[in-house]
């Protein structure tokens, strides 16, 4: 028998700012966060736009000593995790190096907090120092700031989480697969509570140059706020975003015993690989379709039960078409009754954190019965035959929703969330 797993806390740092509620308010407002890049001077780059966390001051959120030993991606993870734990009623007071853990046995709570790229600023900064002055110029904190697991690792240390703790990496599906893996860990009885999510801070000259050279990024530099346009006929690539999101996943009986209110049920997880191409989806979205079907089967729900889909919707020509084909293949005529949105239209593609931020948005949509608009949908591509919510938020009676994430490397991750009732 499968243990029920619920969501009892949410935390986020996004291009709308700090906080899950801040994210949700921004999505309902339908405001684009894309701007000219300020993290470095993008002059001369084919792509000069991104979605940045505005005015983020890590020293205002975290102790100085901690800020100095982590990369920005881990700073985002730490802030999001603290919010999520506080929301779940599992964090004591204080904002120091250590935050007291309450309400759960420390050995029975862990983390799967992912990153797709990890400490990119640490790597590029220290590599420059190496080239300029040799190995003795490289700082020792690189050894703890660079690795992809250190967002989750530092969260576990700060909050005293002694249970299973590691990162799951599958490019743009990392956080989706991470949340699914955390679900499996609770089901397997290895933990009662898991912090699951992702963090990414990859608005960096090297990543923007490389992903740009691959043709993956939008070049609409003169109109950044119109660049991310999932499912639109004029889409030309994604806009890179940064930030983090963390969900507190909890065994249903454990939450009930301590009187914690579930925000949603995490009903299922489906995972597959296209086994086709490193950067292109399998034709007709067959790999994604398999993940959708597996997620439904795992959740016990039928295709006709799905009311809402938070799509991967990157605004690249290949993904949006393949994803639409996958949806049609799985849901048939019921596809027309699934209200679709792409969070990436508003906050860009958070890469290894995307699946987590979008899971937060999915949980909030279920809780409030509203689907935020997918921005910049001026002319929907006929090849993207979905009911995409446009212009204004749409109230939808919903009980079950899916959140999809597909990554370079052929990775497909689908999560099924349901109302707690």
């Amino acid at each position, binding site marked *: 028998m499968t243990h029920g797993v619920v969501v009892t806390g949410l935390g986020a740092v996004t291009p709308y700012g700090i906080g899950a509620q801040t994210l949700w308010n921004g999505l309902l407002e339908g405001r684009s966060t894309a701007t000219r890049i300020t*993290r*470095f*001077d993008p*002059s001369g780059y084919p792509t000069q736009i991104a979605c940045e966390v505005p005015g983020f001051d890590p020293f205002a959120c975290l*102790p*100085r*000593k901690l800020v*100095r*030993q982590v990369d*920005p991606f881990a700073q985002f993870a730490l802030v999001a995790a603290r919010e999520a734990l506080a929301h779940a009623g599992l964090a004591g007071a204080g904002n120091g*190096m250590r935050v007291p853990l309450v309400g759960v046995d420390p050995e029975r709570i862990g983390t799967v907090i992912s990153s797709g790229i990890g400490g990119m*600023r640490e790597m590029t900064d220290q590599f*420059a*120092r190496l080239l*300029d*002055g*040799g190995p*003795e*110029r*490289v*700082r*020792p*904190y690189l*050894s*703890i700031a660079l690795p992809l697991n250190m967002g989750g690792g530092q969260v576990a240390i700060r909050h005293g989480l002694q249970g299973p703790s590691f990162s799951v990496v599958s490019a743009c599906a990392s956080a989706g697969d991470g949340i699914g893996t955390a679900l499996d860990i609770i089901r397997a009885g290895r933990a009662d509570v898991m912090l699951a999510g992702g963090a990414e801070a990859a608005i960096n000259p090297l990543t923007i140059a490389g992903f740009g050279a691959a043709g993956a990024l939008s070049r609409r530099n003169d109109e950044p706020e119109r660049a991310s346009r999932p499912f639109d006929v004029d889409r030309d690539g994604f806009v890179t975003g940064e930030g983090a999101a963390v969900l507190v996943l909890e065994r249903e009986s454990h939450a009930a015993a301590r009187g914690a209110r579930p925000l949603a049920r995490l009903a299922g997880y489906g995972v597959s690989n296209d086994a086709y191409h490193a950067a292109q989806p399998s034709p007709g979205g067959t790999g994604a379709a398999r993940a959708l079907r597996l997620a439904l089967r795992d959740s016990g729900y039928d295709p006709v039960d799905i009311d809402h889909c938070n799509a991967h919707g990157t605004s690249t020509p290949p993904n949006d078409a393949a994803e639409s084909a996958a949806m049609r293949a799985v849901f048939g005529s019921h596809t027309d009754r699934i209200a679709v949105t792409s969070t990436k239209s508003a906050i860009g593609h958070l890469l290894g954190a995307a699946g987590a931020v979008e899971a937060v948005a999915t949980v909030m949509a279920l809780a409030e019965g509203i689907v935020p608009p997918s921005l910049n949908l001026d002319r929907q591509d006929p090849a993207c035959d979905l009911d995409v919510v446009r212009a204004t938020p749409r109230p939808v009676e919903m009980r079950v929703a899916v959140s999809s994430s597909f990554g370079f490397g052929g990775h497909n991750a689908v999560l099924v969330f349901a109302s707690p009732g």
Partner: protein
Amino acid sequence: MDPRLADLLEDLFGIPERDLRPGADLETDLQLDSLAVVELQVALEDVTGVRMGVDGDVDLRTLGDLQAAVERALARGEPAIPTLNLREGEEGR
């Protein structure tokens, strides 16, 4: 104490000036482990241009020990290869 050392202890580790007593134990009073000490050395080299950690076998227990080691290194004056801190278009964050 060399103000550059005091500044770095505050900037890197958030240690306020009032906690900088020579007798303070690096590990138990100031929470500076061996990794932190090496991090500090690299930062001191950036700021002074002088090679630190030349007598690597000396056991540093207290802040006074650390300060004395820094003074010895400065007196020896071996150059550390400096890293250019300012580059076109790169903002320090």
